[in-house]
């Protein structure tokens, strides 16, 4: 049906995007992979992640997850563990390389560095159809991920898995090849590379300009980490002091702890609140036993017989000036001493641009980073691109990946003279925070805890501390997600303004504003689907393509040849909230599997009664609905609706003269598999001689 004279009012924002997606530098489809996990569709979830993210396993562990900072669940209790869920996928699923590379172009691209920026650029260029070679000065891939991130946070197998996949796309990696030494711009040109992407990162540790830095026992942060991680050769004393307040400092401290000295401490300029790393990292560091000295600055390193004996410090007045520039000031006469026999400097990284010799055309900043066009990542020399930390100065892993990805498209556009755009980066308004009056209507769902290694075991090894979500926990965590920005949408051409949705939504979301003729559902929609089923004009649908309210699954069941001979054959619609079971629980389930096919939906409130009729039409002998008991309902009100619709459907079937034993609704705790089995067996017996 079409209606002609409607016009959407401009304040109906139907293009709002979930803030978790917008917050991510690579615009990872956070909501959608979380929603797929919530539905038990893990393989698809992994594929979705991998499509945008060349390093899912690494990212799921060490990303600073700005998505979680912006997650709208922050206002109900706590954000969704978006990163950990990605890790869950990366750890448990993999995928054969898909043959999606449509066109092979003749141009070859050189990438310098196998850090996040270089890997991302090569990955995306390969997907676009270019052959890529990455040159890496180290014997192993990963760049700072491998050199700088401790194994207890990022096991090397995680990096290797991610890189393996990139190699399968056809990307070649040449190790032990240092740019500026073994290869140069000229040699690359001679070898026929059409473009060069520089993603060399910041390999040098900054050093302090104070007395005593050359004493024995003063180590550089990244070199220390690299030695421990790669070769295990680092030597420290009994009393270690790390200088610095960022993530690398925390990594150094926690790594040093695992070498079992008597004491490890961290001294930094910043107050605890100002420290440039996540709260979680600081908490873990302190939890493991590191002593934190905040708001102290190094005056000089003290020594005895050529070896470090401590750090003389000054108390910090402020770290940032009024313009918020880094400009620390100290209290005079506030000297004190922190004793230490080893000092690790983790105060930042610097570039090494020696490879630019002879390439004076490439502009660099005073801070030693390469200047690029912010849209194309082209340096001031045609054909040479740069991204990642060597451009950012100090960026995150995802920011680096984003630059690599954007450069890949820019290189393609230059070489092909096209204007390809990645729509995911388009500007969109974010779904605003939940309207306060609705907060009390949304059920609080507490965040799942990450299982971790017990403290006493942790410090004995370099094994990973966070153990990863098991499947049931991952699903539970994912099911907390509110599907922001992908909920119900009213088609203005179909809505007749009947107000049904306005009246029945448990979260008071749909509204017909004065002057409007049709309903509008804003970003607070919780995707329960009640209004979609009840709208008499069928004007409402889900924006997300992930939710078809059971339809496709039902049709798919009857594509199976097997089911046609089974008597009785029963379709079981069940609620997936807190009901994810790994299918098959012993022999009992085998029999059940013979007679039943289960169709899970996130909330039975979104299933049309006409779908139950359809099941019979397709050939089912019975339809069994197993719904959650109300105390566990994610949407709080579904039980009542399932009950009413069951009655309604029964009436419809009565009208057809059908034996109503063929349509049954039971309220059970879905986690109680035994109870469901009993119900199922009873139903099979009841129908056995009646069909």
């Amino acid at each position, binding site marked *: 049906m079409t209606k002609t004279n409607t016009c959407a009012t401009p304040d109906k924002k139907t293009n709002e995007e979930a803030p978790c997606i917008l917050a991510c530098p690579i615009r990872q489809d956070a909501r959608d992979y979380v929603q797929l996990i919530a539905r038990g569709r893990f393989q698809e979830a992994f594929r979705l992640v991998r499509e945008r993210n060349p390093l899912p396993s690494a990212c799921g562990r060490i990303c600073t997850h700005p998505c979680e900072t912006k997650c709208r669940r922050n206002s109900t209790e706590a954000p969704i563990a978006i990163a950990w869920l990605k890790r869950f996928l990366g750890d448990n699923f993999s995928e054969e390389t898909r043959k999606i590379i449509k066109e092979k172009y003749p141009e070859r691209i050189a990438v310098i560095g196998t850090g996040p920026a270089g890997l991302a650029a090569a990955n995306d260029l390969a997907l676009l159809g270019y052959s890529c070679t990455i040159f890496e000065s180290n014997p192993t891939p990963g760049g700072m991920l491998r050199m700088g991130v401790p194994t207890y946070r990022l096991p090397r197998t995680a990096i290797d898995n991610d890189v393996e996949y990139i190699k399968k796309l056809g990307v070649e990696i040449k190790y032990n090849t240092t740019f500026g030494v073994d290869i140069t711009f000229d040699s690359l040109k001679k070898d026929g590379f059409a473009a060069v992407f520089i993603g060399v990162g910041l390999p040098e540790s900054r050093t302090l300009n104070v007395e005593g830095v050359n004493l024995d026992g003063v180590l550089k942060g990244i070199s220390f980490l690299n030695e421990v991680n790669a070769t295990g050769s680092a030597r420290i004393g009994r009393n270690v002091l790390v200088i610095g307040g960022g993530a690398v400092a925390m990594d150094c401290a926690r790594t040093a702890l695992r070498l079992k000295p008597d004491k490890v401490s961290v001294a930094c300029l910043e107050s605890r609140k100002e420290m440039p790393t996540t709260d979680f990292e600081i908490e873990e560091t302190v939890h493991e036993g590191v002593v934190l000295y905040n708001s102290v600055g190094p005056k000089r390193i003290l020594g005895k017989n050529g070896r470090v004996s401590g750090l003389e410090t000054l108390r910090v007045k402020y770290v940032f000036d009024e313009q918020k520039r880094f400009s620390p000031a100290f209290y005079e006469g506030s000297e004190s001493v922190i004793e230490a026999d080893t000092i690790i400097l983790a105060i930042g990284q610097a570039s090494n641009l020696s490879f630019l010799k002879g390439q004076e055309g490439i502009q660099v900043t005073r801070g030693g980073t390469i200047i690029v066009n912010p849209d194309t990542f082209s340096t001031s020399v045609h054909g040479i691109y740069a991204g990642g930390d060597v451009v950012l100065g100090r960026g995150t892993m995802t920011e680096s990946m984003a630059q690599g990805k954007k450069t890949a498209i820019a290189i393609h556009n230059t070489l092909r003279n096209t204007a390809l755009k990645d729509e995911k980066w388009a500007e969109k308004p974010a779904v605003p925070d939940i309207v306060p009056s609705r907060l009390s209507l949304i059920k609080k769902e507490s965040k799942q805890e990450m299982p971790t290694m017990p403290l006493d075991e942790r410090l004995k090894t370099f094994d990973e501390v966070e153990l990863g979500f098991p499947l049931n926990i991952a699903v539970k965590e994912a099911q907390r997600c509110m599907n922001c920005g992908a909920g119900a949408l009213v088609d203005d051409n179909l809505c007749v303004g009947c107000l049904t949705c306005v009246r029945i939504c448990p979260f008071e979301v749909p509204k017909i504003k004065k002057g409007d003729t049709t309903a509008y559902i804003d970003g607070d929609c919780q995707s329960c689907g009640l209004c979609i089923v009840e709208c*008499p004009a069928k004007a409402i649908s889900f924006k997300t393509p992930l939710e078809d309210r059971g339809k496709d699954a039902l049709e798919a069941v009857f594509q199976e040849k097997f089911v046609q001979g089974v008597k009785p054959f029963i379709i079981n619609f069940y609620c997936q909230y807190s009901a994810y079971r790994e299918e098959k629980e012993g022999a009992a389930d085998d029999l059940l599997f013979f007679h039943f096919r289960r169709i899970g939906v996130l909330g039975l409130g979104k299933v049309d009664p006409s779908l139950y009729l359809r099941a019979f039409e397709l050939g089912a002998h019975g339809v069994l609905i197993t719904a959650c008991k109300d105390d566990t309902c994610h949407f709080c009100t579904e039980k009542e609706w399932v009950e009413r619709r069951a009655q309604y459907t029964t009436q*419809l079937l009565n*009208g057809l003269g059908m034996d109503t034993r063929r349509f049954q609704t039971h309220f059970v705790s879905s986690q109680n598999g035994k109870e469901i089995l009993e119900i199922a067996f009873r139903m099979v017996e009841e129908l056995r001689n009646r069909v």
Partner: protein
Amino acid sequence: MIVASSKPFPEIKQMLSGFKKVCVLGCGSCVTMCHTGGEKQVTELAAQLRLSAKLEGRQLEVKEDSTLRQCEWEFIDDIKEVIKDCDAVLSIACGVGVQYMAEKFPRIRIFPGVNTTFMGGPVEQGIFWERCAGCGNCILGTTGGLCPVSRCAKSLMNGPCGGSQNGKCEVSQETPCVWHQIYDQLDTQQLLATMERIVPPKDWTTGMENHPRKMVIEHLVMKKQ
């Protein structure tokens, strides 16, 4: 709005028996709002018809469509293509729509899928009450805005009658006595004196007594070619 209630399914089945290809046709206006004639209802009814045919081993093809208003020639014109190969149409519009269809498509059998019942509205979500009888001579201005023609079982002009008990009508305990309500309303408006006036017999010739009624808006009437 016009309120219609679904016909019992066995009656619908009976009407359509013998046809092999039918179309269930909804209407996007009043009957959508009262949940008996909209797109959703079309889907459900069509599913019921198909299932019932299957259960009885009958051949039946069921098409589904809907139009903005079945009581407009232009809108139902669009339906022509959809129903041209159907043996019958089950219209779930009000009686007006069914008749428009019958008039427009004289060669196709048109059946009503609903019982057109009254003019009223959803007093609560899902509960519809009659509110107007279309008497053609509205008296709401003297009755506090409550209609005794449609809401009093006896359509009394000088109520309440002796059957009014605790605000309920003697005809059904479920029905509020509208004259009781009129009394309360006039009381609120300090117009109780109106209750004492005897209303002379109402002229019913403007109403149902005078079928079929017709209305002409002169200046809008287009000259026939």
